[in-house]
């Protein structure tokens, strides 16, 4: 008989999304590490080289999807870890909305950065 150690409420939508993003991230995070450390080396990075990759819409869209899934998976993971430690009530609401605001800022800045390489608007 298995013991259920999961931090998440089974059957919930967040639980499902945490798993779906995990399945995607397992592949894309491994690809990201392999490409940027083993195919290209981190110390050889230049703006032009990053730009040449990000100008391909396939690579750009993959990186945008990577940013959104990693942010959701990471921040939702942190939120659930804090709930595991006994976070409840008003503190839970404050933490939840702080994490949502931090995620929104991260996504906005991440998209701006990707756009800077892709030659798309950076908004300001």
């Amino acid at each position, binding site marked *: 008989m298995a013991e259920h150690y999961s931090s998440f409420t089974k059957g919930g939508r967040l639980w499902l999304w945490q798993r779906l993003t*995990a399945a995607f991230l397992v592949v894309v995070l491994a690809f990201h590490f392999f490409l940027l450390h*083993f195919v290209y080396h981190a*110390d050889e990075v230049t703006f032009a080289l990053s730009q040449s990759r990000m100008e391909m819409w396939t690579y750009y869209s993959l990186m945008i999807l990577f940013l959104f899934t990693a942010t959701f998976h990471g921040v939702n993971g942190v939120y659930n870890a804090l709930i595991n430690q006994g976070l409840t009530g008003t503190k839970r609401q404050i933490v939840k909305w702080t994490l949502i605001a931090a995620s929104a800022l991260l996504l906005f800045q991440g998209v701006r950065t990707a756009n800077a390489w892709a030659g798309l608007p950076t908004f300001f």
Partner: protein
Amino acid sequence: MSQSYNRGLIEDFGRWREFSAGMWAWIFHKFTGWVLVGYLFTHIAVLSTAIPAASQDPATLAAGEDIYTTTIVTLESLLLVRILEVGLLAVAVFHILNGLRLLLVDLGIGLDSQDKSFYASLILTGAITVASVPTFIAGAF
């Protein structure tokens, strides 16, 4: 058949001597997750130097003297950064391998050998990390 149960005081880390392999896997997954999400915010902050770099003149960009390239090159010249990158690789590899293990366990695959698959994740993480050290350290000296 799986069963949910009240974990009670399982988050009481003072009981670490009583922890099973599954509990250690849970703690390591949590720890590596915290590191990775912290790195995600730092990573985007560093990469954001591409925004001002994009408006620098083409000659500066072609010469690799823009703010983005010089920031990355400066960071990569530091041995401490290279060592931290090896640590980040170890953290990411463990989180990926243990994450795969968790996905399989969630699907009911390998429940009876979940302790062995945790040990396999640890060993494979160590092997991949050690094998990657030359690539990560190359050019640092």
